[in-house]
């Protein structure tokens, strides 16, 4: 019996719990998970944007880390331990809050991939121009972003193991140069003094949310994605053994990397002057090593590409699982029999991302359109977090019998009910404050809140209504599933588990 199928008696299991363990091989180990966790969350643009807020960024990082990343990480870890299934948040919310909540948990968690990847493609072009000195024209910018989408789709179509190997290889130079940022900044500080004057007192590091609410929302955005690795639940060799390493080790690595890079940038580049997207490469120029900028720029082009590939295959699993349960058309359950990759789901993501790039550049006010879309998708992503934060409280009651089995639940939030409530309340506060500031602190400086908030709200509402429409359209299909018939259809794809594991 696999980890996943232990959770519930077979007759109570949904197709999302029954089918993936039979047809997907377990290929991800502990190190893979740490790489996935850090790569999904770490944004190479993050430190530059945070550094522009000055030394207060350090306090804001720590606040967002304590108020969001750690509690959200603990919630996802407990849920992943309880239900180590494919589809992560989709299954967790389904099991605890019902099918509708499960669908919306998955849907809201899936939607942001489009904003994330489209932004990431623009960031890659930013690093590319930094490295090469090219100035892209409109048509080059558009076609390059589309090309990056399809290169990432192409790599994501390989088997999970092959694609993950590539991502792992790119992780090492990424970690090395990210950490080196701090030493570049330190060199600048020692030889020429800190570009951003060092804080005179501890109070300068303390966050002031009334002034920097938008920066806090940004910090939360830059820490989103803790639940994503669990989308590939049954492809992990042992969720229960590896996930704690991923959440604790990965979070520690993230915290250290963000603090090192932000501090390094501030010491080499005056606050407010850091490039918001390619600062991690440009910082070497500011620190006195301009000859390093092209090389580091190109390395970040590749590492960012690796991160996009990761997004492609990690999020396609949500669509795949929703397809198995017929909340989406069955075509998205197409699995390549050789690579075991959800081909149709990945291709659909690529097609929609391409359309988003084309539509984005079809808007005369490019900046506003892009930023409204990104802010709305951040809100949507934050909303999806509630679908793995609240379920922890519900699961403790609803599945008390599973918690009583120490073989089944090997890790849970310590401190009993108090620990659970503290964690859930902290994560809820962090998440809610971030949503609030996404609406109330425009990301575009020349837009007033009165114009910004309704636009962001409209995009969020469209996302929710679209999800509801898809759910209702497929409701009949999802309720009329013949489990035996479905299992028979997938029998041809069943893996030899002894070999796969």
């Amino acid at each position, binding site marked *: 019996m696999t980890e996943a199928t232990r959770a519930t008696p077979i007759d109570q299991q949904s197709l999302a719990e029954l089918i993936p363990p039979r047809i997907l091989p377990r290929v991800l180990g502990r190190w893979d998970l740490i790489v996935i966790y850090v790569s999904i969350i770490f944004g190479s643009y993050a430190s530059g944007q945070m550094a522009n807020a000055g030394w207060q960024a350090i306090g804001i990082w720590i606040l967002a880390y304590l108020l969001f990343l750690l509690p959200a990480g603990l919630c996802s870890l407990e849920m992943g331990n309880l239900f180590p299934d494919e589809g992560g948040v989709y299954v967790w919310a389904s099991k605890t809050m019902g099918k509708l909540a499960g669908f919306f948990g998955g849907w809201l968690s899936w939607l942001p991939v489009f904003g994330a990847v489209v932004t990431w493609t623009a960031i890659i072009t930013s690093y590319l121009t930094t490295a090469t000195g090219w100035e892209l024209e409109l048509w080059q910018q558009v*076609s390059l972003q589309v090309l990056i989408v399809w290169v990432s789709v192409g790599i994501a179509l390989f088997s999970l193991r092959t694609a993950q190997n590539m991502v792992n290889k790119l992780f090492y130079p990424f970690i090395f140069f990210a950490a080196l940022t701090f030493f570049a900044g330190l060199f600048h500080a020692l030889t020429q003094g800190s570009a951003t004057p060092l804080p005179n007192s501890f109070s300068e590091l303390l966050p002031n949310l009334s002034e920097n609410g938008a920066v806090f929302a940004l910090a939360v955005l830059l820490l989103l994605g803790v639940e994503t690795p669990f989308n590939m639940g049954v492809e992990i060799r042992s969720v229960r053994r590896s996930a704690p390493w991923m959440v604790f080790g990965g979070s520690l690595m993230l915290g250290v990397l963000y603090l090192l890079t932000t501090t390094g940038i501030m010491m080499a580049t005056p606050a407010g002057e850091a490039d918001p997207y390619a600062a991690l490469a440009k910082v070497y120029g500011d620190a006195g090593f301009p000859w390093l900028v092209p090389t580091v720029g190109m390395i970040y082009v590749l590492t960012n590409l690796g991160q996009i590939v990761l997004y492609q295959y990690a999020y396609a699993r949500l669509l795949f699982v929703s397809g198995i349960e017929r909340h989406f058309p069955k075509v998205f359950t197409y699995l390549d029999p050789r690579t075991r990759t959800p081909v149709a789901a990945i291709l659909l993501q690529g097609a929609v991302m391409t359309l988003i790039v084309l539509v984005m550049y079809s808007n005369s006010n490019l900046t506003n359109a892009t930023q409204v879309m990104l802010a709305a998708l951040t809100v949507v992503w934050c909303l999806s977090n509630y679908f793995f934060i609240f379920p922890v409280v519900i699961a403790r009651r609803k599945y008390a019998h599973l918690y009583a089995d120490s073989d089944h639940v090997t890790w849970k939030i310590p401190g009993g009910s108090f620990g659970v409530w503290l964690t859930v309340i902290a994560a809820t506060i962090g998440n809610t404050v971030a949503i609030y500031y996404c609406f109330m602190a425009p990301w575009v400086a020349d837009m007033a809140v009165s114009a910004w908030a309704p636009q962001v709200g409209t995009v969020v509402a469209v996302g929710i209504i679209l999800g509801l429409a898809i759910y209702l359209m497929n409701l009949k299909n999802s309720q009329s599933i013949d489990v035996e018939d479905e299992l028979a259809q997938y029998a041809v794809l069943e893996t030899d588990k002894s070999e796969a594991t």
Partner: protein
Amino acid sequence: LIYKFFKMAIANLLRYGTRTALTSVGLALAIAVVLFVNVISLSFESGAAQVYRYLQMVQAGVANVWVTPTTGINLDSSTGFFTTEGGTLPESLADQILKSGPGIKVVVAALPGITTTRPVTLYGRSDRQTAAINQAAKHQLNLNGNDTQLNQVPVQFDLTESLPEIGAGGLIELPLATAQKILDLPAVVHWVMLKSPNVVEFRDTIAQQQNILVTTDPTVKVQTGPAQTGQAQTGQAQAGLPDQRGIAYLLRDRLGRGDLVTFDVKLAAIYFNQASSTLLGWLAKITLGLGFVLMLSAALLSLEERRHEFGILTAVGVSSDVLYLFLLESLILFIGATLLGIGIGILLLQILVPTLFNWSIILKSVVLVICYLPPMVIFGSLIPAQQLLRKSPLELLRTATA
């Protein structure tokens, strides 16, 4: 396996040869229309981009700030040059920025604009006391290479060498005084472009002192009066004060997290979309949609006729590979139609608008048209595949036999 599927896909397309040909031609015509409109839009965008780059390179080298009146900048379609609409920069402000800004290295000087009598824009530069006009203006003013006044000042575009599309033939430079005399232009400063070694300092000090709105968004314009559109990035201009004196566009800087792309890409997007948002542009988009629907209906029709084949494939357990078959068929059809469409589009351009026939712009348009290809191929194969999956193998075989 890919080869096997490729052969199968070709065989299937050939089996319904007439339908395949008609679908391809329909789709090709749609693609031709899109290419045609894209070339027109890109010509517009290219013109703007060229002039913008010219301004940057000739006037300011690597200018990073462009200070304009509160009405912002516009591309004048009759001359192909940027203008300021309905206003000039206050002379005192221009003077202050050019001469006394802390940390600002002045590179650019005056820029006379369109005259009311002649639709010609002229860009002047103070360091050489010369001005530039484009070829269209040259023809309008009946200036030619034999003109004595022009011959007195040889064309000197030392900074435009890297811009072959502008080149010495594209613009003419002549002494400022001569130009003003010929064109009867008033010596008014419409805007200034400059290089500030410290953009942040410019943003935080000069802009606030002079009450200038600082932005990286070329669409921002400030209406004077109580109702303001452009809100502040500098604290000073937050209320959109009526006495706001100008807008400073940061050309080489990005503000906060709002700027994914550079200023000139945003600028180009404005002019590209102005052209593609016209009735012609919408017709092209609708035509492309119709082409896609045509292709999709042909695929679904063929699906009905091939039930038996698909029934056998799914019955023997290779249904997972049927998607690849659809993908390949769709890909082959779209590639063929795209190539044909590009050919037809080029032919249409040459016949209908020979003045816009420019291989460089056509190449750019072709690349943009190809960007539409992957989503159409994917949707064009996923939809028939979904239709197929709704039936069980038995159902497929039974209905096919019936």
